[in-house]
């Protein structure tokens, strides 16, 4: 009896782990693509918030989550385009532009939500994405429930990761992306359009972040609250560094943080523990710092990361 309770408890934590990792996988994989091409999109937090807001609002009004998702993707593309315009074409400082994006994202999503829904803050709910049970696989003992009874966005995030791996490491396009992040001038001399590659990669990070944010408001929960992303955009930056700028490492990083979030939620709900819940809430962030410290100096980051490309005149 004791054993079974224990196993069910663990299973519950792992189910939550996957769900809590999903937004980080979306934003993380998108960021890996951009950083492999040499652009640090620090504006993830803001873009995630815009994604969460857009997905929920359009989904709520139209009653169609698919339409909501389409709008999220468009918002991701537009955000990416603007970010690329500033950082790639205008060659503004990527950190400054990123911070501006984050402030804009927080302000704009909060402002629009209040304007549109005024008094009913936090009360409105929509019909969120429901779990899809994959035939046969979902019946597997233990892991069936963890891996194969999740909603469509969870599955999509893993597909996104696989696609990124395929493109980056198994196609000529991937070679072009990696060369642009490592030595853009060399790529240029081989006839590669450095700007085009960077634009496309930043667009991918915009879409990834927007989807990651939307997951929180239309799949993980069914409400939008201000600052719903609560730092996940910043955590993504840490996860990607922890994952050595590679999709697999980033996936692992996202899962580890998903686990922290899940454990933290679980610990919070345990009665009889006197430690203030803030301590548990701080856990993922604390782990971020430890993770970054543990890899100090060993990281193999793309050499041109963060450096705008000055084309020849």
């Amino acid at each position: 009896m004791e054993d079974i309770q224990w196993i069910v408890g663990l299973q519950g934590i792992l189910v939550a782990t996957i769900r809590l990792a999903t937004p980080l996988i979306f934003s993380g994989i998108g960021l890996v693509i951009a950083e492999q091409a040499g652009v640090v999109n620090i504006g993830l937090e803001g873009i995630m918030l815009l994604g969460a807001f857009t997905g929920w609002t359009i989904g709520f009004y139209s009653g169609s989550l698919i339409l909501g998702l389409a709008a999220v993707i468009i918002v991701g593309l537009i955000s990416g385009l603007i970010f690329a315009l500033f950082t790639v074409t205008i060659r503004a400082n990527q950190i400054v532009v990123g911070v501006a994006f984050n402030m804009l994202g927080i302000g704009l999503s909060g402002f629009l939500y209040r304007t549109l829904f005024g008094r009913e803050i936090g009360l409105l709910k929509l019909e969120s994405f429901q779990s899809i049970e994959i035939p046969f696989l979902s019946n597997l003992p233990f892991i069936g429930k963890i891996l194969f009874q999740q909603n469509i966005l969870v599955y999509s995030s893993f597909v996104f990761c696989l696609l990124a791996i395929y493109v980056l490491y198994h196609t000529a396009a991937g070679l072009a992306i990696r060369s642009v992040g490592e030595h853009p001038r060399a790529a240029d001399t081989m006839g590669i359009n450095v700007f085009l590659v960077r634009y496309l990669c930043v667009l991918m990070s915009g879409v990834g972040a927007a989807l990651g944010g939307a997951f929180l408001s239309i799949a993980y929960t069914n409400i939008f609250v201000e600052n719903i992303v609560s730092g996940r955009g910043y955590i993504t930056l840490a996860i990607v560094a922890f994952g050595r700028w590679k999709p697999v490492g980033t996936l692992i990083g996202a899962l580890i943080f998903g686990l922290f979030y899940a454990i933290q939620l679980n610990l919070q709900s345990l009665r009889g523990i006197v430690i203030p819940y803030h301590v548990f809430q701080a856990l993922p962030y604390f782990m971020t710092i430890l993770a970054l410290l543990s890899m100090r100096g060993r990281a193999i980051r793309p050499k041109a990361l963060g450096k705008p490309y000055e084309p020849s005149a």
Partner: protein
Amino acid sequence: MLLSMEKINKIFPGNVVATNNVSLEVRQGEIHCLLGENGAGKTVLMNILYGMYQPDSGQIYYKGQPISIHSPKDSIENRIGMVHQHFMLVETLTVAENIILGQWKPWKNLKEMEKVHERIKNLGEEYGLFVNPNALIRELSVGEQQRVEILKALYRGTDLLILDEPTSVLTPQETVQLLNLLRGLADKGLTIIFITHKFEEVFQVSDRVTVLRDGQLVGTTDTAQTTFGELAKWMVGREVFMDLDRSKSNSKEVVLSVRGLQATDERGLLAVKDVSFDVHANEIVGIAGVSGNGQTELALGLAGLIEIKYDRLELCGQELKKITAKNLDRIGFGHIPEDRQGMGLILPFSVAENFILGEYNSEPYSHYGFLQNRQIINHAQLLVNKFSVRVSNVKEEITNLSGGNQQKVVVARELNRNPNFLLVNQPTRGIDIGATEFVYQQILKQRDAGSAVLLISTDLEEVFKLSDRVLVMFEGQIIGEVPPDREQIFKVGLMMAGKQVEEELA
């Protein structure tokens, strides 16, 4: 005529005239040397041809047609290839990946690399350009990387190959190999433009030669019709100096004595392995070697700029446990660093301010923490005159000076302190012959005044011209010492390639 560039003008922001109405004609199948001093405009002219820069005016005809080249993509399509002076290789990718970079449709699967490997091997056999297609670029030596650059052009099919100062990173032996290879390629019908500032190479390899000076065309001639002296005059605009006047060194007093020095490079790998040597007063010790064999780390270590380990180090009779800026300063240390713009100068500062770096906080330049401008300006004026730095106003930003004049500022500042130990690294890289001559004279003068000088240079001519003794550095070790006789240059070349001389000459 394969290529004809007509009246090419290129002016960079800040009114830097890089090429001024330059015309160049290249015949099918020839090796055409482009000769000129540093800053003459050779690289810019060729980058225009390769599509890296857009000319302000001028026309290019290629294979009888007027063409416009907006990016390297266009030149690649026209079967023009270029080996840049700073290699354009992605270090984290393999040889084969670098070779096909940008040449495939984006969605092509990398599984098809197998065939590429096969073709690279075949090309390698055909031309004697052997490299392992699967090796990562960062694992290769500089010579091998150059082979990859040439393979890149051959692989995609090239009718006109440009090489920008390809021998500057090679040992004399590798240079001979490269020149032979190019001759072979030309015999097979490839047309080659070969950029250099070394006369010997012009005579060794080229059919014709074009000389540029200060962004202008001086002339084009058949190599067989010209002489060393004529080309030198074309290149410099006057007769060039040759050998330096010097007395024999005769000091017994050891100024610097190093035993078992070790240093690591940026990646944490051992770059200097157990190096020991002495430098005496009134002596110049030259360290020859191909760049990247630990010279940079040795210099930074001796200047106290990176941490090093050693068994014993004595400077001016004092044993130092640790090299710090402070104890170097006390002992009397001068440093002419390798990277003049990055380490020797602060570019946005004025000429006058650059003259007091290191002393800005002491009298008379500073009084209770306030800079004494009059003193600083007077001091600068004095040094500018003494070392004939060409500058209209010492308050001008130093970034506006030419490379040669910037280097004179560094030399003036360091020598003015009359150091007991002078560390000199690549003192004439990228500066014109006039300034080079001047720097040489100043270094010799400092030696004659009794300083101990350690000269690190990848330019063998320079090492032989200045040194009293020559040490050869290879893979972080000093593998031999030779006297600075001309006849020894070939032997040193072999040593720079890592050959133990005894076995080679036995």
